[in-house]
């Protein structure tokens, strides 16, 4: 499956990272109990990324031209797994790096990528991804946020929504409409936008699970230099299509580590008789199957395979496993989830509620099944 070299390299990385995490446990530990609020989680994320970057761990598996140390991408997968398994980072926030950095590396001007990516890896900056719009959820090709050419650069006007961490972000990978509305996926251009540009307003959106992790983003005649174009003008669809499999690869491996930790904690925390053995067995198998699939994807990526529509299967499995794990939580720890007011109960509750979104965000379960039917089963068009 993988050449011996990468596996040996990963084993060395794993051992020395684990030792370091043990030695630095105090410095890395969060200052709060339970989940913490989003501000606390972001501060914790910045601290952990900086310590990991300065010690070299966060640079492993990234290309040297963007401040990385090269080597197998499996190191990145393991770093996120280890940080998540020790509850040092919130996996969804941590994994934004895995989604956005590869896009910059592949599509930005090399000098721009070299200047920007290290700040993201080190946690000095937060980036966000401006894809969805109020009228453009699943149908991404219909996006309307307009970018017009001018002497000073692109002038961007429009609105984005579900933009994760926009209120914290220093930069945004933004999809804009540069062609006619009828041009659909052909008239889209990706831009790398400074979030402190005049004309940008961010409004965080309150969510069911209590953490306002995404925002509305309003752009009013925002000037973006042409040097900040990612890929070709009109080539934004390719940028988006290459980014989306990254949403469904390393970040999912990190999520598997998170779910494994929580299921372990559930087994510890559930009172005698509260866990139905049949369901526990089934949920464990679902989680291990999702993890086995995601593991294979990590190894394919490390071997240099181009990830594509097959990662939609990984996403369906994540949503299924995550909701199954937290359905079990809601039953076995019903008092904690429903009326517990201590920080640990609040975390179970928040994570249960967040699990409801697993089949919605990052391409809904229905969109993933459409992709599977069209691209993997060759069933042709759906109308």
């Amino acid at each position, binding site marked *: *499956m993988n050449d011996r070299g990468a596996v040996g390299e*990963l084993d060395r990385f*794993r051992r020395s990272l684990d030792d370091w995490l043990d030695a630095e446990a105090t410095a890395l530990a969060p200052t709060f109990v339970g989940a913490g609020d989003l501000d606390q989680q972001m501060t914790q994320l910045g601290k952990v990324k900086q310590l990991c970057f300065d010690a070299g761990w966060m640079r492993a598996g990234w290309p040297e031209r963007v401040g990385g140390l090269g080597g197998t991408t*499996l190191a990145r*997968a*393991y770093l996120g*797994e280890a940080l998540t398994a020790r509850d040092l980072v919130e996996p969804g926030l941590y994994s934004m790096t895995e989604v956005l950095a590869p896009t910059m590396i592949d599509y930005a001007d090399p000098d721009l990528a070299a200047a920007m990516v290290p700040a993201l890896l080190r946690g000095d900056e937060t980036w966000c991804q401006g894809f969805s719009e109020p009228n453009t959820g699943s149908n991404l090709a219909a996006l309307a946020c307009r970018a017009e050419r001018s002497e000073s650069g692109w002038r961007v006007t429009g609105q984005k929504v579900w933009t994760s961490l926009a209120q914290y972000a220093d930069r945004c990978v933004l999809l804009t409409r540069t062609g006619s509305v009828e041009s659909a996926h052909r008239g889209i251009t990706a831009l790398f936008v400074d979030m402190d540009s005049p004309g940008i307003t961010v409004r965080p959106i309150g969510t069911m699970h209590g953490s306002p992790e995404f925002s509305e983003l309003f752009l009013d005649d925002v000037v973006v230099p042409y040097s900040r174009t990612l890929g070709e003008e009109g080539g934004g669809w390719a940028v988006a299509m290459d980014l989306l499999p990254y949403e469904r690869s390393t970040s999912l*491996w990190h999520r598997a580590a998170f779910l*494994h930790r929580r*299921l*372990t904690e559930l*087994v*510890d925390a559930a009172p005698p008789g509260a*866990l*139905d*053995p*049949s*369901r*526990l*067995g*089934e949920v*464990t*198998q*679902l989680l*291990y*199957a*999702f*993890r*086995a*699939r995601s*593991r*294979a994807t*990590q190894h394919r990526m490390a071997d240099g395979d181009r990830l594509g529509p097959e990662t939609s*299967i990984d996403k*369906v*499995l994540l949503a299924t496993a995550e909701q199954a794990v937290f359905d079990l939580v809601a039953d076995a720890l019903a008092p904690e989830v429903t009326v517990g007011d201590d920080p640990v109960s609040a975390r179970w509750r928040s994570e249960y509620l967040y699990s409801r979104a697993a089949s919605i965000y990052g391409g809904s379960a*229905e969109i*993933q*099944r*459409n992709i*599977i*039917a*069209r691209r*993997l*089963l*060759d*069933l*042709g*068009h*759906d*109308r």
Partner: protein
Amino acid sequence: MDADDIDMFERGLRDVTGRTTGAALDAELDELGWDDALDDDEQSAVSLLFGLQGRAGATSSALSRLMTHALGLPGSSAEDVMTVLPAIGVTTPPGTLDGDRLRVDGLSPAGLADQASALVVASVGHGATTACRVATADLELRPVVGVDPDLGLLRVIGDVDGTGRRVDLPTGAWDAGIALGCLATGHELVGASRAMLDLACDHARERIQFDRPIASFQAVRHRLAEALVAVAMAEAMLDAAWLDPGPVSAAMAKSVAGHQARTASRHCQQVLAGIGFTVEHPFHRYVRRTLVLDSLFGTSASLATRLGNSIIDEGRLPPLLPL
């Protein structure tokens, strides 16, 4: 085996499983040297043969021969000794020693009828097992009709002298045999699932209703997508189990393969609708095969319950396969 060998071996197996079944397939497997391949590269020999056998809906004696191989008895090659399989739904050895008597209640592929003797494993208490060579003539071999007559299973029953040729098995040998059997049936279930999915996708592309192929309807597409997710889940678990072999990972993989084959079967049956319910279409053969394979070595449901109970008893989840 290197990649070229595996490729050639796979082509050979695809050919013979596609055109023969039963005794004829056993003869072809001898010709292809499947037993040697088993000694040489267990994973390739098992995953390729059983996957293709499942896909073709073929049957052979390979599962019993695989058990013999896993037991690792000196002087008993998989080629000439068939091990009696456990009764349906269980993983306990088919033999029970009671004083001088050996009572037998298990299952076997049809090929046992052509063998002079069978290997019957019996438990001797505290997890220890012993393997007895029993003359086939002394056993009752009762053809099983059941839900899948084409499988040609035999119920093996006997009450024979237990003082004959016996070899005590090392600790864990029977469990290792069950584990390998679980992986083999897991691959066969995946093969059958793939076959059902192929049949359903072909039908969806060809069947026209409301002036368009039913494959263009989202309700149909999503069922087929679900079936592919089910197959992929089982394949991932089996691949992972080969990297981390052992009774627990093999039983989990078998349970997932069984559960997901039944899921795939349900979605594909719905897409195939009326024609898939008739014997004029091959689909029903795979439904039948899936049901029996899911029950061999424990149903997916019973294996999941067993896993859940062991997690609760031990207070921890099964070991994780590292990245």
